[in-house]
């Protein structure tokens, strides 16, 4: 049985008249087990491989190999299916025309599915909305599946009437999770990130076919380790308070604020998807009406809920004090993740400005990003930034845009922008 725990990092002391409370809540899951084995329902896995005509022979060969390797990671007994995606989606395995569109994994199914993948041929365009919709239909054809995960690989830009993809994303949101990977450099990071963020998954670039196999194996292993099907971050705030934002800040930055589902007038749920043995950090910011010096009150109860059951809770507090030594202190965790969130924004805005030809803004934003990455010890961001800019002064954030940049490096910086680092924690 999975066990959850929560710890809160914050400076609870507010000055006279202070209203805004910031806290980092770390939620840790232990003993998650294996997907579909915890008794709360079956797990379903769908592998979607882009089979449009843009997939070159080398990429296609690598994609087939990687998809077959991913099959090997799917635990026997797990419901699965394979979709070949082009300008429409085709159910490649199981090859059925009626009844459930998924089958349970065993040695024979794995062999047959591998063979089906081996017959993939690239042709046609890219209509990702049809892929997402077919995945949803397949999941819904097996009622016992409660944990739904998709691995999606594409290599090109979506070629559909604007809005179609967003509609499909909306239909899938809250129903299944998706980890998305882009092969090569012809796909749009922003487009695929939109899918991954809405579907509570990750996005990354696979610049060379050789890396595909390891990436697929890794994604599928992680998916199979998520033994806790679906959980929500439940946030209670007192009457008269306002939730400024709720953000996941580790392992990646994801703003959940707009994804609130009300539970009651004071409580809302934010989706977190499935959990493996892992730890995630959330940054909650609450505005409460100021109280008199010396008063203490609860600003938020931050809980993890599995269905209706609350499995852990962290308390975010506010205490008004006239001791400026207490009230001016900024919690290390809050400062760190505030910097990491700003870093993600600076990278994305900098790259967008660069793409739009606004070099001045790009230089300022990416310079700020270099500064923040250094300050917050985000070495991955630092090394990826250095492939896009020449750094004159890291501390000051003065940089020059490189004249020639590998497209893949720029995309890698973009996809990695939301990844955060952690700092050592001392309970506050």
């Amino acid at each position, binding site marked *: 049985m999975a066990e959850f725990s929560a710890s809160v990092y914050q400076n609870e002391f507010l000055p006279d008249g202070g209203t805004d409370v910031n806290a980092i809540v770390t939620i840790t899951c232990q003993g998650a087990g294996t997907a579909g084995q915890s008794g709360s329902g079956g797990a379903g896995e769908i592998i979607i491989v882009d089979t449009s005509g843009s997939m070159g022979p080398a990429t296609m060969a690598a994609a087939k190999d990687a998809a077959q390797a991913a099959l090997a990671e799917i635990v026997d007994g797990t419901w699965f299916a394979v979709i070949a995606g082009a300008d429409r989606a085709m159910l490649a395995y199981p090859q059925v025309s009626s009844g459930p569109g998924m089958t349970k994994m065993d040695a024979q199914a794995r062999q047959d599915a591998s063979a089906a993948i081996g017959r993939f041929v690239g042709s046609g365009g890219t209509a990702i909305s049809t892929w997402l919709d077919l995945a949803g239909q397949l999941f819904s054809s097996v009622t016992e599946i409660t944990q739904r995960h998709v691995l999606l690989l594409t290599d090109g830009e979506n070629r559909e009437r604007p809005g179609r993809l967003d509609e499909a994303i909306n239909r899938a949101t809250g129903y299944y999770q998706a980890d998305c990977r882009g092969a090569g450099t012809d796909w749009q990071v922003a487009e695929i990130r939109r899918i991954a963020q809405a579907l509570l998954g990750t996005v990354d670039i696979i610049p060379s076919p050789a890396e595909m196999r390891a990436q697929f194996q890794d994604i599928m292993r992680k998916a199979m380790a998520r033994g806790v099907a679906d959980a929500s971050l439940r946030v209670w705030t*007192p009457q008269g308070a306002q939730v400024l934002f709720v953000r996941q800040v580790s392992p990646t930055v994801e703003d959940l604020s707009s994804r609130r589902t009300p539970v009651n007038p004071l409580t809302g749920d934010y989706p977190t998807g499935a959990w493996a043995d892992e730890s995630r950090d959330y940054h909650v910011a609450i505005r409460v009406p100021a109280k008199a010096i010396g008063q203490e009150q*609860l600003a938020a109860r931050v809980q993890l809920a599995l269905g209706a059951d609350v499995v852990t809770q962290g308390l975010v507090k506010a205490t008004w004090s006239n001791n400026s030594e207490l009230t001016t202190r900024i919690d290390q965790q809050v400062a760190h993740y505030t910097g990491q969130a700003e870093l993600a924004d600076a990278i994305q805005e900098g790259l967008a400005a660069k793409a739009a030809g606004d070099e001045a803004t790009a230089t300022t934003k990416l310079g700020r990003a270099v500064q923040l990455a250094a300050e917050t010890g985000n070495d991955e961001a630092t090394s990826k930034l250095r492939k896009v800019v020449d750094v004159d002064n890291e501390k000051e954030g003065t940089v020059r845009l490189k004249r020639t940049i590998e497209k893949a490096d720029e995309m890698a910086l973009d996809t990695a922008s939301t990844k955060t680092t952690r700092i050592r924690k001392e309970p506050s």
Partner: protein
Amino acid sequence: MTCPSCGSTVPDSARFCESCGAQLGQPAVVPAAAGAPPPADHPLGDAPISAPTRKPVGFLADPPKAAGRRPCGECGGEVGPDLYCLACGTKAPSERDHFEEQPASWVAGVCDKAIGKSRNEDAMALLAGEAPGSRAVLVVLDGVSNSVDSDVASLAGARAAREVLRVPLPAGMGTPESRDAAVRKVFANAVAAANTAIVAVTDPDSPNPASATFSAAVLEGRRISWANIGDSRSYWIPDSGQPLQLSVDDSVAQEQIESGVAREVAETGPQAHAITKWLGRDAEDIVPSVGSREVEASGWLLTCSDGLWNYISAPEAMAAQVRATGTTTPLDLAQALVAFANASGGHDNITAALARVDVSDLGQNDRTPTPGGVPSDG
């Protein structure tokens, strides 16, 4: 051990239940040396008279315990298991930080941490007979804040004194002088019991042993008797007419007032809160000043800590505040006085214990019995 209020398991050393906030355990019981001769420092050691023998008829029961968790003091909402209000998030005070007692409809008190303090070192213990005007005991102790565990000590002391005052005050041997001497003796016993309890819960190695003030008032019919050590106070506040401060502080401020300094000056000076007598391991003199008087009109007997009187020290000011509330319900008045002190800054723990005296409840026979127990007129 398990919490008697909610049944959760709590560590044996816990003073409060982690899950419901209820106060745990009884204050340390003062060991009685059964069978052994009283030690030399025993209050009855070589007293000229025997300890008063008392009929059990006057025995007063403890006030009933409040059932369950009180609703949120801020908004009236339900308080969650994490001790914060489920509606407004206000932290519910622990049973030690804020408690109320109402042993009878006409007697009640509130003991509150105050918004400016982090711990409630005031303590209160009340008793009352059911019939209005019959018999009430108000005990207030104010733990001294720079001493260790003075919150535990003050409550232990207040409850120990309450035990002594549970039975009616003695009437003496037939003369007012002998009655006064007997009452004085009982109050001395109550103070000694409080002191013993305070010392018993004090860590013997503590460099800052717990100490506390002591103020008790007993109402029996029309007669009020009081005893005092330190600067907690008893007031008599008639509904109209001249209010009185009954007890006399043992404080530097009081000494200054007696030497001619104006009250406002003395009570706001640098030594305003320095007390010259206290209870505790380092106490030098624990004989209380004692007094008594008969009341003729309806009004309030108030025993309080300096957390209240700091803002309205003069009897007239206290009376104005009491009369302004316009209530004759003691719990309402106690809450109002505590709220007033908090609104005035709440710089120190606040205790207000009140007994309502209504002369219409008191027949002629309730005039203080003549010593010897035979009513003189009636």
